[in-house]
């Protein structure tokens, strides 16, 4: 599963993207955020308030209770400030 990060989520985690082997216990987007937060200081800092993190699966916005497909690109980022 490919993960991509933007803005301060990217800065805190310290990289723009990575590929992970998703454990079977991770079913939804919320599970993924909780699992990632345990991976180190940068991840913990990025995901300390998971409720503000916006998530897209394969370029589409999703809610945190969305189940993760097996093979997909998951993007994590702060609320958008374009326009």
């Amino acid at each position, binding site marked *: 599963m490919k993960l991509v990060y933007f803005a301060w989520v990217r800065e805190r985690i310290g990289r723009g993207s990575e590929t992970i082997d998703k454990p079977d216990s991770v079913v939804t987007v919320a599970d993924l955020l909780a699992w990632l937060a345990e991976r180190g200081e940068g991840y913990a800092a990025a995901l300390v308030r998971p409720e503000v993190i916006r998530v897209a699966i394969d370029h589409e916005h999703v809610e945190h209770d969305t189940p993760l497909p097996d093979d997909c690109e998951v993007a994590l980022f702060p609320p958008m400030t*374009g326009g």
Partner: protein
Amino acid sequence: MAITPRISVQEQDFDTAAEIERISDGRKDIGAVVTFSGKCRDEQGTLVALELEHYPGMAEAEIGRIAAEAAERWELLGLTVIHRYGKIPVGENIVLVVAASKSRAASFEAANFLMDYLKSRAPFWKKEHRVDGQDGGWVEAKQSDEDALAVWQKQS
């Protein structure tokens, strides 16, 4: 049948006049063209530029979805959305919406809708470059932008 909007996510500046021309040139059915230009503005004389980060691929896809929804909701004869990324100095353009229609209400409402949605749903993030060279940090999302979106969602 709804029109096909023209979408561009690009680093270089755009030419508003050329975009109006592109939509309306040679046509006799357009009675109203509304443009919205969003510019990089200096809040308190502290800003040099904004750095716009975007999510390549999703930026185009999401703007395309928003534009398609506008083209469904209003009888538009033309619709263009251009959003820049990269380092944008104060005073320069960030975003352009051009909406053309038979009469004025559709163009006004569609352009307004587009901007409200772009602000809260298009994957772009602004970081400040300050005059004093310090890291200005990331611009925070405004609750008022979310509220603007909620109004349209109630109407749909």
